[in-house]
């Protein structure tokens, strides 16, 4: 009698762990998919950030700024006589 109880318990435990393994694997897969999605989102954001930085750097390229300042905005470098030195 006792033997049958043990057998039954073991059987149930066996089935239960088997099911748990199945669930575990399934959850792992789901989690991995979620991780992949998040990774992808992160990468996309990083890429976007890099692209924006690149764009910003291209707009702020010294040569371009120099030319826009001189040609379009008509800016000039202050001459010596334009600078007033104050002594404190």
């Amino acid at each position: 009698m006792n033997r049958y109880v043990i057998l039954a318990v073991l059987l149930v435990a066996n089935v239960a762990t088997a099911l748990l393994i199945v669930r575990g694997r399934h959850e792992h897969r789901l989690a991995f998919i979620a991780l992949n999605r998040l990774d992808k989102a992160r990468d996309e954001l990083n890429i976007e950030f890099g692209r924006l930085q690149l764009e910003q750097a291209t707009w702020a390229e010294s040569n371009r700024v120099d030319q826009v300042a001189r040609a379009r905005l008509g800016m000039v470098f202050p001459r010596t006589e334009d600078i007033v030195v104050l002594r404190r």
Partner: protein
Amino acid sequence: MKLPDFQLPGFTRRDPREAARRDAGRRDGARPSGNRPRSRASFNLRGRLLLVGGALGLCSFALLGRALDLQVIEKEFYQQQGAARFLREIPIATSRGMITDRNGEPLAVSSPVESIWANPQELLKSPARLPQLADALGMDRDELQRRLSQRADKEFVYLKRRINPDEARRILALEIPGVASQREYRRFYPQGEALAHVLGFTNVDDRGQEGLELAFDDWLRGTPGAKRVIRDRRGRIVENVDLVRAAQPGRDLALSIDRRIQYLAHRELRTAITETGASSGSAVVLDVATGEVLAMVNLPTFNPNSVGTSPRDAHRNRAITDLFEPGSTMKPLTVAAGLEAGVITPASMFNTNPGWIPNGRYRTTDTHNYGVLDTTGVIRKSSNVGAAMIVHRLGDRQFYDFVRRFGYGERTGSGFPGESAGVFPAPDRWDGTSKQTMSYGYALSVTPLQIATAYAALGNGGVLNAPSFIKGQHGASHRALDPGIAREVLRMMQTVTEPGGTATRAAILGYHVAGKTGTSRKASAGGYSRRYIGYFAGLVPVDKPRFSMVVVVNDPDPSRKGYTGGSVSAPTFRNVMEGALRLMDVSPDNLDTWLAAQAEAEAKRLKASGRGVPARATAATAPAPATRALQ
């Protein structure tokens, strides 16, 4: 019971054994009943059922056996085969670290692009689609066919690398079997040619090829990760199975370069090269206190965003790889050596009459006869004869060891790939004239960076810092000279940019500039040609030097703006340093000249307008520009 009966006719006709058995049965049954058709009772149902059941049993046993064979005995093999077909370990591309300047401005950024690849085994199964694919790729049809056939036994071939993601999406939309895309990264250099030599560039696999991209390749490069995926036959990912290794993105690198000074130096050097008709040029700006490289430019240059089209010659970072005879920029070191050894004092007098002295079979000559000069005069007038007289009072070893301490003849330790050590032979390899010619910068060769480093040591109270390209990371430093002597030499060099010196055009309003011009004749077969290299090396402000800068203009056309360092290189030095002092908020150490210049400009303006402007009006308009000037 109908079924066997129904099946029987066909069965009998085909199987002779069965027919024989039936014949036998008929004979058995026919004997008592004569010619009567055989009865239903004699029909052997049991035997037939056994036969059918046995056959079915055998079949299922065979199936079971096969299943056992597949699932248990040969399991490994089949699983491997299956995995080999659909499970793929694919790399996770990772981006290369960004390079920024000292203020965090991006100088090199990796941006994703797509590479189209194909599995030739798959693709060649549908040859009808090849022309369509070739058109989409913009490739010659025959060439595509050839490329695929050559690799017909492979599973991977790149079709087109590094294209715009949108274009890649269009090609993939054709859904040609065996064609897929893969993300890769391409390097962009927003500063373009101004910084090309320092940064270098990467190859198609995003590996550093030259410059700092090569020197710091391991730091910048990430480690690609890997993941296991299930792919269908078109190469599309059906499912992500597992992460094998997470990707490790490359680390960022903050350089010591200041983008603004770099650009300024590039622009001014370009102007100088164009105006003087020189063939090439270099300029280096160092931070005196730390040895950090703030700017390093060379011409001719190239566009690092499309390296392929530029001549190889333009790729060289001349400021580090090319050797020049330093000419008169050597003289401050000669004078410092004399002062340190105690063989001369600042007050020593040198009679340079008649403007030349013998050196073996040759002569050392000055451009003019300067007569009697003191030590400062030797530097101010750049007298070769004076330098020769100083070095005569020094021992060979003494002079050699002193100059070695300033880093001539060995690599500076900047870590830049392809750096030259320079040529500065030991005294046992000198011939009779070497020491004297070395005193004014011939018979030895150095890189522009070495000159800048040596001058920075003079400005840094005699402590030489190894130059560094990385912000906050400094190389070895050692004391090369007593601080008092360094100060003394600096004051002598200050006279060079003051009236009566050789480089009045290097003077910067509001600042004392210590510098030295150099004009060396280029060595050519068997002697020195009438081609020149113009130098200016200097330090600002003298009071507490912040920058050490060297400008080298190689082979200027003497008919345009002359060829001396004072006329071809000094203006570049002035323009760049003026901007750098302003950009880095260095306070002026010579306000008096500034005030004087201002008073003069004021007077001129008053005279031009013809009437007196009340002093108070000027004061009222003053604050805005004045704060800028003082910042």
